[in-house]
C-alpha cells in the first residue's frame, strides 16, 4: 500500500475527531478538547502534505510521462439499483486539483484550529460556552469539505455539498443565543440549499440522459464511455438549448450558491455573524470556493457547452465588479472582507469561464490557461484571505467591535497584526512579489485572450480591489489616533493566534513562486506560462493607482471622503446599502412569493389536502373504534374469527378463481 492509497485517512481522522469531540469531548475539560482537536488536525495536515507531495513530485502511477493521472485509491459501491445499472459510489479521487485542495483545506483548517485556541477561549471575559461543540463542528466541516474535493462522482459530491452546508450552518449559528447569528445561519442555509436544489436537478437531468454519475473520473478507465454518453445526450434539445446545457447551467447555479455569485451572494455578508476564525475557514478559503471547484471539476464537460460557459463568464465578471463596488463603502471590517471575497471568487469563476474559449481557439499548449490561473488564484487567495480574516479576528478580539470607526490608529498597539494585514493587502492588490500578483496576472492574461473588453473590465476591478483593501487598512491602523476606552489598551494577541498569522503571512509572500503551470492543469499536461509584461505592468500600475488613491483619501484624517460621499450621495448610499439587494429579496419573498404564491397554496393545503387527511384520520379513528369488539379477550371468539377467516379466504379466492 503506497502513501496515496491511504488518502482515505485524511478524511477518516476529522470524522473521528468530530465523533470523539462531539460525544466524549463535552465531558472533558475545555483546554484538553481544544488541544486534542488541534493535534488531530495537525496529523491530518501532515498526512495531506505528504500525499500532495508524493502526488506531485513522487514517481508512481500518478505521473505517466509527465502527465498527471487521476487515481482512485478507494471506491466503494454504496447503492446499486436495477442490476448495477445505476450505481452510487463513495470513494477517493486524487488528481492535481484535489491534491491541491487537500493542501489548502488542511493548511487553513489547521491554522484556524490553532488560532481558535486563543480566540475562542473567552467571550467578553467569560469562558466561552460550547467550546467543545465548536471544535467538533470544525472537525465536521473539515471532513465534509475534504470529502467534497475527493469525490469520485457527482452524487457523492452532492452529498458532501449538503454536509458542507449543514456544518457551515452549525458554525455560523454558533452563538445561537444571539438573534443576528440565528438569522444569518438560517439565511445562509436556505439560500445555499435553494441553489443546491438546482444542483440536484442538474444532476438528475444529466444522469437521466447519460445513465451514469461518473462525471468526475473522466480520465479514468470508463471515461470515454461517459464522454460518449454525454456527447450523445448533447444532441437532445429542450426549449432550443441542449439538455446537457441546461443540466450544466443548473449545476453551475448550485455552485453559484455556495460561491456567493450574484444574485445568490446575499448570505455571505450576513454569515460574518459567526466567530471570525470560522469566517476565515469557511467564508474565505474553503466553502465559498466549492462552487469554483465544482465548475473546475466538471470543466471537461463545460468546455463542450459554450452556452453554459458564457453564462458563467457574464455572472462572474458582473459579480466581481458589483462586490468590489460595495466593498468600497462598507464600515464593518468583516463585511468589507466578505465582499472582497465575493469579488475575488468571481475572478476565479470568470477565469474558468474564459478558459474554454482558449481551449477551442488556440488548442495548443496554452489551452486551459484560465483554468490553471483560476486554481492558482484559488490557492493564493485562500492563504491571504484567511490571513486577512484572522487579522480581523485579532483586531476584533482586541477592540470588541466590528466597526472600523472603533478602530483607527491601531498600528502602534498591534504591530504584528498590522504588518501581517499589510502583507495580505499587498497580496490581494497584486503587488509583486506577493502571491496575488502572480495568480491575478495569469487571470488577466486569460481574460485579455478572450477579448479586450473582458480584460479591461477585470483590470478595472483589480484596481478597485487595491483601493478598497488599502482603504480598510488605513482606516483600521491609521486615520487618527486611537482613543483608549476603559483601562485596557488593545494589544497583540497570545501566541496561538500570532503563529497562524505569521505562517500565513509567510505563505502569502512566497506562494506566488509555486510553478502552478507545471502542476495543476485541467488535463494533467504541463502548460508553459510566460510573464506577459504588458499585462503585468498595466495591472501593477492600476493597483498602484488604487493604493495611491486610498493613501490620499484615508492615510490621515481628512474631510475628503465625507465630501465625496455627500457629492455622490445617491451612489454612496446605494453602495453602502449593498445596492438594496437584501431589500429586493425581502420584497420578492414577502410581497410576491408569500402573498401571491404561498397564500393560495396555503389555502389549498389547509382546505383540500388537510381536509383529505382529516377525513382519513376520522375514518381511521372511527373504524378503529368500530372494530375493537373483535379483540374481545375470549379464546372462543379468537378461534371463531380464525376459522371464519380461513374459510372466507378459501371461499372468496375459490369463487374468484373457479368462476373465471
Amino acid at each position: 500500500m503506497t502513501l496515496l492509497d491511504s488518502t482515505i485517512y485524511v478524511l477518516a481522522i476529522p470524522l473521528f475527531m468530530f465523533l470523539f469531540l462531539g460525544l466524549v469531548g463535552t465531558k472533558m475539560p475545555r483546554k484538553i478538547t481544544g488541544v486534542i482537536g488541534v493535534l488531530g488536525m495537525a496529523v491530518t495536515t501532515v498526512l495531506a502534505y505528504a500525499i500532495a507531495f508524493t502526488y506531485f513530485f513522487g514517481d508512481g502511477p500518478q505521473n505517466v510521462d509527465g502527465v498527471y493521472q487521476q487515481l482512485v485509491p478507494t471506491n466503494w459501491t454504496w447503492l446499486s439499483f436495477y442490476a448495477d445499472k445505476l450505481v452510487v459510489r463513495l470513494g477517493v479521487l486524487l488528481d492535481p486539483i484535489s491534491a491541491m485542495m487537500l493542501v489548502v483545506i488542511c493548511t487553513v483548517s489547521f491554522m484556524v484550529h490553532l488560532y481558535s485556541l486563543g480566540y475562542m477561549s473567552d467571550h467578553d471575559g467569560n469562558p466561552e460556552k460550547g467550546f467543545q461543540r465548536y471544535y467538533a463542528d470544525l472537525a465536521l466541516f473539515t471532513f465534509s469539505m475534504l470529502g467534497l474535493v475527493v469525490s469520485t462522482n457527482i452524487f457523492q459530491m452532492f452529498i458532501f455539498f449538503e454536509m458542507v452546508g449543514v456544518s457551515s450552518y452549525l458554525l455560523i449559528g454558533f452563538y445561537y443565543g444571539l438573534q443576528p447569528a440565528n438569522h444569518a445561519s438560517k439565511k445562509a442555509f436556505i439560500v445555499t440549499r435553494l441553489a443546491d436544489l438546482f444542483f440536484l436537478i442538474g444532476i438528475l437531468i444529466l444522469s437521466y440522459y447519460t445513465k451514469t454519475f461518473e462525471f468526475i473520473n473522466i480520465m479514468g478507465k470508463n471515461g470515454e464511455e461517459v464522454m460518449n454518453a454525454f456527447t450523445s445526450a448533447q444532441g437532445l434539445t429542450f426549449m432550443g438549448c441542449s439538455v446537457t446545457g441546461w443540466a450544466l447551467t443548473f449545476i453551475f447555479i448550485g455552485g453559484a450558491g455556495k460561491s456567493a455569485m450574484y444574485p445568490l451572494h446575499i448570505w455571505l455578508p450576513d454569515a460574518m455573524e459567526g466567530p471570525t476564525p470560522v469566517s476565515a475557514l469557511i467564508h474565505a478559503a474553503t466553502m465559498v470556493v466549492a462552487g469554483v471547484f465544482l465548475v473546475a471539476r466538471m470543466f471537461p464537460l463545460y468546455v463542450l457547452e459554450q452556452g453554459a460557459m458564457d453564462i458563467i463568464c457574464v455572472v462572474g465578471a458582473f459579480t466581481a465588479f458589483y462586490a468590489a463596488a460595495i466593498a468600497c463603502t462598507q464600515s464593518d471590517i468583516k463585511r468589507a472582507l466578505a465582499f472582497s471575497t465575493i469579488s475575488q471568487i468571481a475572478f476565479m469563476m470568470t477565469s474558468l469561464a474564459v478558459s474554454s474559449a482558449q481551449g477551442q481557439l488556440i488548442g495548443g499548449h496554452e489551452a486551459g490557461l484560465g483554468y490553471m490561473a483560476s486554481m492558482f488564484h484559488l490557492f493564493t487567495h485562500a492563504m491571504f484571505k484567511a490571513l486577512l480574516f484572522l487579522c480581523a479576528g485579532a483586531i476584533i478580539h482586541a477592540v470588541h467591535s466590528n466597526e472600523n470607526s472603533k478602530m483607527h490608529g491601531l498600528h502602534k498597539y498591534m504591530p504584528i497584526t498590522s504588518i501581517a494585514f499589510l502583507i495580505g493587502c499587498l497580496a490581494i492588490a497584486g503587488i509583486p512579489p506577493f502571491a496575488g500578483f502572480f495568480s491575478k496576472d495569469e487571470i488577466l492574461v486569460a481574460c485579455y485572450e478572450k477579448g479586450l473588453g473582458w480584460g479591461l473590465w477585470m483590470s478595472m476591478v483589480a484596481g478597485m480591489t487595491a483601493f478598497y483593501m488599502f482603504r480598510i487598512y488605513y482606516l483600521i491602523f491609521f486615520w487618527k489616533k486611537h482613543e483608549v476606552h476603559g483601562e485596557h489598551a488593545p494589544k497583540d494577541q497570545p501566541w496561538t493566534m500570532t503563529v497562524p498569522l505569521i505562517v500565513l503571512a509567510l505563505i502569502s509572500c512566497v506562494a506566488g513562486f509555486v510553478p502552478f503551470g507545471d502542476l495543476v492543469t485541467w488535463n494533467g499536461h504541463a502548460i508553459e506560462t510566460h510573464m506577459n509584461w504588458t499585462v503585468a505592468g498595466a495591472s501593477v500600475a492600476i493597483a498602484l493607482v488604487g493604493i495611491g488613491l486610498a493613501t490620499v483619501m484615508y492615510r490621515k484624517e481628512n474631510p475628503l471622503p465625507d465630501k465625496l460621499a455627500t457629492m455622490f450621495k445617491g451612489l454612496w448610499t446605494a453602495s453602502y446599502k449593498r445596492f438594496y439587494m437584501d431589500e429586493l429579496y425581502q420584497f420578492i419573498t414577502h410581497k410576491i412569493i408569500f402573498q401571491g404564491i404561498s397564500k393560495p397554496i396555503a389555502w389549498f393545503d389547509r382546505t383540500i389536502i388537510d381536509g383529505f387527511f382529516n377525513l382519513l384520520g376520522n375514518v381511521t379513528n372511527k373504524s378503529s373504534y368500530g372494530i375493537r369488539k373483535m379483540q374481545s379477550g375470549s379464546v372462543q371468539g379468537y378461534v371463531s374469527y380464525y376459522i371464519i377467516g380461513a374459510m372466507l379466504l378459501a371461499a372468496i379466492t375459490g369463487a374468484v378463481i373457479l368462476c373465471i
Partner: protein
Amino acid sequence: MNLDYSQFLMMPQELGLLAVFLLVFLYDTFMPKSTQKGLPLFATIAFGIYMILGFLPVKEGLLFGDMFQADKATWAIKNILNIGTFIVLLQAVKWANSDFVSIRRGEFYELILLTLFGMYLMISARHFLVFVIGLETASLPLATLVAFEKKYYESHEAAAKYVLTAVFSSAIMLMGLSFVYALSGGNLYFNQLACFIMGEPSLLLILALAFVIAGIGFKLSLVPFHLWTADVYQGAPTMVTSYLSVISKGSAAFAFFIILVQVFGSAYADVWQWMLYAVIIITITVGNLFAIRQRNLKRFLAFSSISQAGYIMLGVIAANAVGMASMMYYILVYIFSNLAAFGVIAVIERYTGKVTTDDYNGLFKTNPWLAFVMMLAMFSLGGIPPFAGFFSKFFIFVGAAQTGSVAIYVLVLIALINTIISLYYYLLVVKAMFIRQDECAIPKLKSHWTEATGLWICTLGIILIGLVSCIYTSLSDITASLSGVFGMI
C-alpha cells in the same frame, strides 16, 4: 435408505446451537448452587461465541434424502436470527436473576435455545414432516416461556390463550397439509410436490392453501389469525414478548416464503398471491387501526408488529430474488428496531413497573439516553430516513414493485398510506417522551450494563444498517444466486 452420518457435518449451525444448549443444560444441572447466578451471563457469552462462529461459511447441499436444505440463504437468515436472539439473551441477564424468576433462570435460557433450534428446522425444512416438527418445537416451549412469571395472573392467562390457539392453528394447518398429501398422492417433499400437484386449481387445493396460510399466519400474527397476539404480548414477560415478536416471526416469514414459492409457486401463483394480497391489506390496516388506540406500550407494539408482519409479507408476495433479499433485510432491521423498543420498555418496567404511554411523559428530561433510543426505534419502525427502517421499507417496496403487476402497485400504494398512518402512533410515543411534561416523570434510572450493551447494539444497528450498503448488497447477491434453484418468479 442408509443414513450418511457425515451429513451432520453439513449442518454446523444446528450442531453449534445444540452444543450451546448442552453446555447451558450441564451448567444448570451440575454446577453448584452458588454459581448459578452466573448462568445467564454464561449462556449469553456461550451463545455470543456461537453467534460469531456462525458466520463461518457453510457447505451447501440438500441433506437427509432431500429433507433438509443448507444453503447461503438459510445460513444468512439463521445468522440474522442469532443476532436477535443474542440481544434478547443479553438483555434478559438482569431480569433472569431477579426474584421470582431466578429459580427457573436455567429453563428460560434452555427453552429459548430449543425454540431457536425448532426455528432452524422450519427454515431448513424441505419436507412437510420436518417443517411441522420444527414448527411445534418452536411453538410449544414458547407457551411455558409466556407463563414464566408464575406469580402474575396475566402471564397464566396469556399462556393458556397461546396454547389453545396454537394447538387449534396447528390442527388447521395439519388438515391443510393432509389435503396436500391427498393431492400429491402421498408426497410431501418440497422439491417434488410441484411435479405432483398440477392442473387447474381444485377446491381441495384452495382449501389446503388457505389452511397453510392460516397456520403460518398464526405464527406471523397475520389478520385474522392474530387475535392472540395482543393478549399474549401483554401478559408475557417482556423478554419473551420481544423474542416472540421478532425471532419467531422472522423464522416463520422465511419458511412461509419457501413453502409458498417452492411448493405452490409456479403453478398456483395467482391463487396464493391473491389470498396473500387480501391478508396483507387487512393485516397492515387492522394492525394500524388497533395500534392507534393502545395506551399500554406492550399491546401497542403487539399491534405495530402485526402491521410490520404485513410489510414483511410484501417480500413474500413479490416471490422474486429481490423480494427474498428485502424480506431478510427487513427482518434484520426489524430485529434491531423492535428489540430497541422492547429493551427500553423492559428496563423501565423492571424498575418502575410502568408500561403505558402516559407514564413516559417527560422521559427525555429524566432519562435522555433511554428516550433517545426509544425515539430511534420509533423512527426506524415508522420508516423515517436515514434510519434503517426507511431503507428496509424502501427495498421491500422496490421488491414488490418489481413484479410489475398493477395490482401489486396498488398494494404498495396502500402499504405506503398505512406507513403514514403508522407514523402517527409511533410519533405519539416520541411526543410523550419529548414534548409532554410530567412532574412525576419516571425518575432517573441506571440500567444494568448488559441491558445498556443490548441497547447500544440496537442503536448502532438502527443507525448503521441502512447506511452500510454492503449488508443489503450481500443479501441480494445470495438470493440472486439462488433464484434459479427453486422457481422464483
